[in-house]
């Protein structure tokens, strides 16, 4: 502002205003440097503040997505190891069925194989009721409680779980199915093309072997093809689980990349550029020192001190 003449009080007022404004600017920079944040309130830069809010929101939601991915990973790993055991059992049943189909075995030998099969069937049912990481049936779909129970009259295993395994969201609209339902890998077609399930096949075989007679050998022979289908079904399910696990890996990788991008944007938008701020602070303090010195010099200039 141009000064044409000056009054004493105006001189002091102006010096006061100028020094104060320099000081408050320097203090603002100092607080930016010490807090690392460029914005103290939203009104410092409304647009950047709004962007920071949405980044923080994405961070909060991404943390939930990461937890969901971890949970899905552990559930699918549990499913994978359970499927491995199923495959092992089916291989064992195939061995037993092959033995039983041999004509040289006596009825009592077949009956003992049959009782082993009955035991294996119990194991299969309890394995089908395996729990997941949160204590629900791993293969029971979205129902709580067991996946399979034993019909008290017929003794057959029944699927009592929900229709589909739940989906977990992995963020950005991506989802993954957390597990499989029992029927998805335990039900398959038998030799004649009818739908059956592993527990029923094993029960039929075990019952027939224990009953003995010529039917025992025929049933054992017939079950070999069906058991091959059962093994196929389980190994297919393992492939599905494996591909889901690698999908989660991909998603987690993307989540990490997004998280890194977000934090770098947060630093860009809301962080203090320390070197710039320090240089600016240095500049301000130089100006402030010069202003103080010139004020001290000018204010001591008075005609009264010269006139005697």
């Amino acid at each position, binding site marked *: 502002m141009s000064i044409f003449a000056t*009054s*004493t009080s105006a001189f002091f007022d102006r010096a006061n205003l100028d020094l104060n404004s320099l000081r408050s600017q320097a203090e603002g920079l100092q607080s930016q440097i010490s807090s690392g944040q460029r914005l103290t309130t939203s009104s410092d830069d409304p647009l950047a503040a709004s962007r920071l809010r949405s980044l923080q929101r994405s961070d909060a939601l991404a943390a939930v997505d990461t*937890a969901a991915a971890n949970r899905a990973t552990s559930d699918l790993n549990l499913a994978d190891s359970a499927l491995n055991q199923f495959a092992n059992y089916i291989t064992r049943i195939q061995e037993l069925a092959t033995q039983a189909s041999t004509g040289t075995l006596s009825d009592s030998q077949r009956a003992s194989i049959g009782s082993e099969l009955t035991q294996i069937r119990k194991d299969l049912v309890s394995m089908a009721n395996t729990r997941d990481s949160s204590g629900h049936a791993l293969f029971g779909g*979205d*129902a709580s409680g067991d996946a399979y129970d034993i019909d008290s009259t017929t003794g057959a295993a029944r699927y009592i779980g*929900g229709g589909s395994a739940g989906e977990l*969201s992995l963020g950005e609209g991506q989802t993954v199915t957390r597990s499989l339902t029992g029927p998805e890998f335990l039900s398959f077609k038998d030799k004649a093309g009818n739908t059956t399930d592993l527990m029923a096949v094993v029960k039929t075989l075990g019952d027939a072997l224990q009953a003995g007679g010529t039917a025992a050998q025929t049933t054992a022979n017939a079950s070999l093809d069906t058991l091959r289908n059962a093994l196929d079904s389980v190994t297919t399910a393992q492939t599905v689980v494996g591909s889901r696990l690698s999908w989660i890996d991909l998603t987690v990788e993307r989540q990490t990349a997004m998280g890194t991008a977000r934090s770098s944007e947060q630093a860009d938008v809301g962080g203090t550029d320390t070197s710039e701020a320090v240089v600016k602070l240095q500049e301000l303090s130089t100006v402030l020192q010069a202003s103080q010195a010139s004020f001290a010099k000018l204010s001591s200039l008075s005609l009264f001190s010269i006139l005697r």
Partner: protein
Amino acid sequence: MSSDLLSIGASGVKAAKIALDVTGQNISNASSDGYIRRTAKSTEVASTGYHGTIRDVSLSGVRISGVIRNADAFRQAEVRRTGSDTARASTEVSSLSNIEAAVENANVYTAITGFESSLQKLKEDPTDTSLRASVLEAGRTMTQTFQIAATQLDAVGTGLRFNATDGVTQVNTLAAELARTNLRLSRAADASSDQTALLDQRDKLLNDLSQYADIGTTFASDGTVAVTIGGGSAPTLVAGGTSYAVAMTTVSGTGTVSDGTISFDVGGAPVALSGGSLAGQQQSLIKLGQVHGNLDTLAADIVTTVNDAQKGGVDLDGTTGGDLFSGDKASNFTLTASSGRLIATAATGIGSRDTTNLDALRTALGTTDPAGRMDGILFDISGTVSGHTVTRDALKTISDAAATALSAQSGVDLDTEAVNLVRYQQAFQASGRVMQVASDLFDTLLNIK
């Protein structure tokens, strides 16, 4: 008619004495608020001759014809006008910053995000009671932050109305004082030191008044002033020795809309203010009402969205979902559900892990978009603060320039006064010397023998 050297000298001494007094007064008031530099105006005393004495020398020295106030009416008016604008803008910035702090520091946005992410987390295992409890607690936190924001906004509103009431009292006091000053001015002698002091007082009162409201002034030849307040029809505030009281009315809210805006009138005639702190408070209260209204609508929409979505499913015990929240505005937004079991996540079934209804709730919340709207509210108020800060800074520069220009012209410069002090001291000494010469001349005449 003839001259008298002794009395000429005496008048010079007297005039120099008065000029020294004025200089001394200037020096001692160098930092007084509203003091305007005076100068003593000296006039020659000489009688013009008439026909018979036309060749006579008739000189009678000097006299102080008046004390001059070096006030520039135009610059004073500029200081009042720009000061009024700055006062309005400063009040707006500080009150809007309070509104911003009230909404921002309540952390409503963070709480909404917390509620949303707790719902997302619940999807991992909808039958887990601890996850359900965390949804309920996140919901409770959200309702509480809304209540805090509403309480804070109400407090800001109360503070603004209190300040406005105080401002109105000040305006009325100043107007009454101005009317009294007018009365005394109309009786004061022209160019007397009494009148200059009264004029200083008048200008200071006008300046103070302009900090509260924008005023219009009309000066009469005797120095009295008539003041109108506000724009438009501009009702009279002070006329001669009479002042008229300004009254403030608070608009009461209707229904769920909390209004609380204020209006002013002088004896029933509405006052449309565009400057001064009162205008700032009036404008800020309008913005406050708008922000408060947006917050209320958002709270009511969250209640409706969540409760409607609840009805579409069943809770953990298989019963149709009831209301989770209640309230129709931010201040009565509360959590009504007593247990996490009451969140309806499944479509049907007891203890089902089905998330159909939870997904529906999250989709409905996604459509209502509470986080986005809250961000909008925060952006609205912080953008307004930021814009007004720029305006305030610009207006402040203008009003500072006007004040400096006035002060440079009418304020006391100690260096000038030092020079004057020397000058009048020399004039005093010289006039004394004149008296000495007159006495010597007289003695010379007496000594003629």
